[in-house]
């Protein structure tokens, strides 16, 4: 019998550009302590820790956790590309849900280098080989950053299919900047106009520089517990996880060859379906969404994949402003990966942090009115899509 799982504490560091942050263990322990403080739970109560990061030698998780406490508890190091943070979250949730522990912490962190993502190991099979071959067949390779080619190519394919304007993609970034301007934790607080975004240097048509998430350093954490544990600690009406699912690639990611499918459209579509089914709720019941806008193109695709917009109608959805305050949903109130930043391991937990604040009504200027149900979408190529639905009564 699955147990209900509550998110009783969250915390994150202000995201910073590479070179301007503390070292990973300092960021991670700060975020972890903030989450514990938020939960009003002492370190001694934590029975397991899940530490997510992509770049770093083995057992960085311990190094980070040891800054909080040396209690000898199990520490698991988690790596799942850009969905690392929510993968750690999922594992912690499963431990509580399955009755293994009463209280666990998930910490995600990343210390990134300047410039685009690259492969660190050149002497072995590239995990994205299959994906790269699809791209190779559809559009070939260029010198642009790999991820931008992949998501940009998906954007091209979408444009060709539905006749989308290039400006529509920029419009998403404009919204992200606007949202981030109210988020003190975000990397970019300055708003940008569609024209400025369009005028930034082209990375991979239709993507310009301001439509690509920046390399970022930062950390975030969440404390999860059972109902019994919450009761015992006098925690009233916490945010809880109403549903959660992870999907990995289906055959459609590779055949027939489609850039949209290759970058995880069907993973997201299936994942959303699982989450909606498990929660018994649909997109209409959700008010606020944090979704994986690593590139504007992916935010646009995700609207359709997770059912916010009908297939082919994302452009209309965007220009009608259905993705921001006053529209049907507020997507990425935090500024998203585009503007808040994207420290790979931390992103999934930073999304969680934002949504918990939103459901508690403590998101200050970013507060989405009447937020009762929140949805999180975190995607890693390679691949894994993790989606989580949060509720608060």
């Amino acid at each position, binding site marked *: 019998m699955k147990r209900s799982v509550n998110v009783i504490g969250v915390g994150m560091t202000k995201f910073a550009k590479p070179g301007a942050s503390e070292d990973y263990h300092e960021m991670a322990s700060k975020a972890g302590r903030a989450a514990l403080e938020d939960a009003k739970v002492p370190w001694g109560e934590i029975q397991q820790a899940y530490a997510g990061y992509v770049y770093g030698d083995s057992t960085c998780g311990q190094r980070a956790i040891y800054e909080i406490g040396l209690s000898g508890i199990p520490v698991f190091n988690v790596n799942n590309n850009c969905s690392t943070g929510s993968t750690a979250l999922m594992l912690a949730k499963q431990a509580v849900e399955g009755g293994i522990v009463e209280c666990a912490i998930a910490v995600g962190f990343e210390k990134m280098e300047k410039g685009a993502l690259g*492969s660190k190991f*050149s*002497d072995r099979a*590239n995990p994205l080989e299959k994906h*790269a*071959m699809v791209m*190779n067949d*559809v*559009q*070939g*390779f*260029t*010198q642009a950053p*790999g991820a931008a080619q992949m998501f940009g*190519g998906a954007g*091209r*394919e979408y*444009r*060709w299919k539905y*006749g*989308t*304007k*290039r400006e529509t993609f920029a419009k998403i970034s404009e919204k992200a900047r606007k949202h981030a301007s109210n988020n003190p934790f975000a990397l970019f607080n300055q708003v940008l106009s569609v024209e400025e975004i369009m005028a930034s240097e082209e990375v*991979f*048509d239709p993507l310009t520089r301001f439509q690509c998430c920046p390399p970022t350093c930062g950390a975030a954490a969440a404390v999860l517990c059972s109902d019994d544990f919450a009761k015992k600690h006098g925690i009233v009406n916490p945010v809880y996880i109403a549903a959660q699912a992870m999907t990995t690639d289906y055959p459609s990611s590779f055949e*027939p060859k489609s*850039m949209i499918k290759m970058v995880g459209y069907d993973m997201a579509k299936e994942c959303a379906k699982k989450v909606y089914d498990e929660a018994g709720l649909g997109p209409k019941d959700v008010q606020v969404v944090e979704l994986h806008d690593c590139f504007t193109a992916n935010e646009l695709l995700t609207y359709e994949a997770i059912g916010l917009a009908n297939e082919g109608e994302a452009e209309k959805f965007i220009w009608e402003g259905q993705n921001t305050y006053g529209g049907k949903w507020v997507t990425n109130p935090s500024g998203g990966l585009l503007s808040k930043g994207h420290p790979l391991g931390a992103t999934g937990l930073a999304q969680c942090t934002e949504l918990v604040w939103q459901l508690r009504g403590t998101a200050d200027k970013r507060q989405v009115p009447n937020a009762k149900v929140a949805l999180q979408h975190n995607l890693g190529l390679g691949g894994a899509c993790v989606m989580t639905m949060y509720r608060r009564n």
Partner: protein
Amino acid sequence: MADLRFDNRVAIVTGGGNGLGRSHALFLASRGAKVVVNDLGGGFKGEGKSSAAADKVVEEIKAAGGQAVANYDSVEDGDKIVKTALDAFGGVDIVINNAGILRDTSFQKMTDQDWDLIMKVHVNGAYKVTKAAWGHMRDKGYGRIIFTTSAAGIYGNFGQANYSAAKLALVGLMQTLAIEGKKKNVFANAIGPIAGSRMTETVLPPDLIAALKPEFVTPLVAYLCHESCEENGGTFEVGGGFMGKLRWERAEGELFRISRAITPEQVKASWSKIAGFEKATHPSDITASMQPILGNLGTAKTKGGNELIDLDLALGYEAQAVESSYDERDVALYALGVGAAHDPLDDADLQTVYELHGEGMKVLPTFGVVPILNVMMKNAREGKTIPGLNYGFDRVLHGEQYTEVKYPLPTHAKLTHKVRVKDIFDKGKNALVVTSSTSYDEDGNEVIYNELTTFVRGAGGWGGERGPSADINVPPTRAPDAVMSEKIPENQALLYRLSGDWNPLHADPSFAKNFGFQKPILHGLCSYGIAARHVIKSFCKGDPRLFKSIKARFADTVFPGETLKTEMWKEGNKVIFRCRVEGKEKDAISNAAVELYEKIPTRPAKKAAAPAAASAGGGAAAAGAGSPVAMIFSAVAHHVDTHKDLTKIAKVFQFNITDPSAKWVVDLKEGKVYEGAAAKADTTLELSQSDWLAMATGQANPQKLYFGGKLKITGDVMASQKLDFLKEVKPPPAGAAASAPVAAPAPAGELGEFLPVHVFAGMRDHIEKHPELVAKVATVYQWKLTNPESYWILDLKNGKGKVEEGKVDKPDTTMELTQADFLDMSAGKADPQKLYFGGKLKIGGNLMASQKLEFLKSIDKEAAKAAAMKVTAQAAPKATSAAASGAGAGAGSKVPEILKALADRLAKNAGLGKEIGGTLQFQVGDHKFSVSANGFAEGLNDKRDATLTFKEEGAFVDLVEDASKEQDLFMHGQIRVDGNIQLAKKLGFLNKLV
């Protein structure tokens, strides 16, 4: 835009008294047409008759200053209606078949009368009116005919079975008339209107009827009837403000080989292709419809097979090379597995199992079968099969085995195996499949060759070749020269199977019982190894290194515990042998022989980086050190030498150059460049010598070569991007090229480059010798070769036939392909069918005539060569220089020519620009121009709806030449689109401009 007028045109509108017909009549009259308003004046169910309806419309027209006469005949008397037009206005230009009635009822309740009446009015009526007008229109060379079909016919509708049938019958009629009338400028189209009329007002709600006014349908009809409209054979849905053309869509479909029966199970298995529209096409005429079937005519010439074996797929199939390795432990385990060293003190035997033996370890030659069998077993376990061999292990018996070692096997090695299906024989009920495998050592030297003959139960019977049947290696009648007997220990099979053949039949008693054996049986290949040991002991003094090859047929089962007797006869360098189980008169191994070397062969020396021996075959000489390829690589070597930081790339690139072939390694782990094959390459690049030279000298862009399919990259594709440094490679400084001698590029050989001019000379020669071809083929072929471009005429229709360079006015069939493909095709290296279906050979006009080119295969190669030599002597210098200039050089200059043609085309056909539905701005290099409803305009258009920016002129030229599709160019980033991207999908007007 000026009004579309119909002055002096005579139009017949049937059913013109009400609804749609009335609307058409009033409108055409208002634009100057003289109209015959036909209406029987009956009810919409076909009852009654009066003149009132038609008269009323005629009065209305006249009142507005127009000309019209009424006609009250039934459409079944179509000739009378047409006569009214001739009498009143002296001709007929437009027929609008609009009259119709309804007799709606469910099919269950439908009477014959309901059916017949609908057929009469709609089908017969439209036929009669049109037929009566047809001759007049053809004579005059002008006519526009409209048929009125219906959504009920196109999609079906409850209660309208009769009406649906009749309405779609009209589409069929229209489509054929469109074909028959086309040359006489008599065009036919059909409309499926949705309009509120007397016929529909009973079923549709009033507010919908209001939106479905006939006036929303008439403008389309009017345009289709206008002289400026070139539309012919179209079917349109129209109404409520919507107008759109319909067409047929066909699923990608499945092409079954027609040389054997097609089963419903195959149909079911292919259902997604038969019924799925993901890769749909839109055939627009019967030729297009037939296309897949024509393809099947070619593939019908099958080599044979059945559902278990497909010779077309399997025979000659070469699997991708696989690597495996073995060491001393594997060697020793095998030797023990075939019974070596029963006596551990037997020194010769000990050498085969003991790696620290003072004389060195020696490998039993039959071990040569183990690595490849392990690879095959592994493939089988992983489900990797050979295409066309669709049977399981349950049908297979190991029939014969041949193993040859080229030099004494090393005690450990890393091997690369190449497997090929060599032969497939039809033995009646069963089949024999012969698989050959060649294993190469790390230096690329061939070390083992195996042939595995499997007997496939129940897989024969397609009537194919039976293969060799006479027994070879039959023992002479004299007493054997040597005999050896050996008791096989009871546990021998358990030991042997550790070398890789894990089949439970050799270990599991219950499994063996299920196969009808009283206990697990010995592996045939174990007996094989034992027999080989006997030969070595008897004739090689125990030294396995003199052993060359062994061939054996597995004739009967051997059980562990039995005693195996090998009888041997020495015949020259060959030892013929047979094996029998002691006490049995039946051969366990028959038709068997071992070949011996006279002296122990030595392992070939490791290939040095210096010139390769002429191992690569015919063209190897040109690829030697003095060749242009070697020059370039020595320059690369120099560059790598002087740029040590390149080793940071840490990748090994294998270059396989073809035509002529050469292999080179650029090792950026060690910073070495050498000729040969790398032990382990990260990335393998394969391209022709000329492309490599072009690439290395900066004349060809690797990206382009890659997308053009001329550069194949396997392995780590990403790593190939790191080869950018090649651009910086400079020719080696004089004297610095000690590593590889630099010579001037080799002069062209005696024949020079082989060019189309030579092939066509061969054709000409052939036709001169076979004048009967002209009458037989009776076709004029236009060849268009691209890259570089040239045109050739092959006239097998007129006079004595001719072959010459140039273009012909009216070819029956056009064939378009690249020069390289053409040369391959004429050399028999490429199959025209395959080129055609791979989209590399485009055939226009009479497709069937392309099948008549079979005779090309029978061209006498020697005579062609002689004819070609003659041509070479005259024209080689010119031709060679033309070829060398390449496609790229000409591309830049092509744009102005294209633009001129485009302006021309748009001026001649104003409709084309309108079809775009907006203003398209182009930027092609420095050329700026726009295309819109107003035609072609130079410069930047302020009213542009979309801008297409072509990064390279070549991409634009490719698009015009239909060498690339707009979507591909867009996805590859060759076209950037700003504004309304939908307009970028309407570039049909560019097609084949030049």
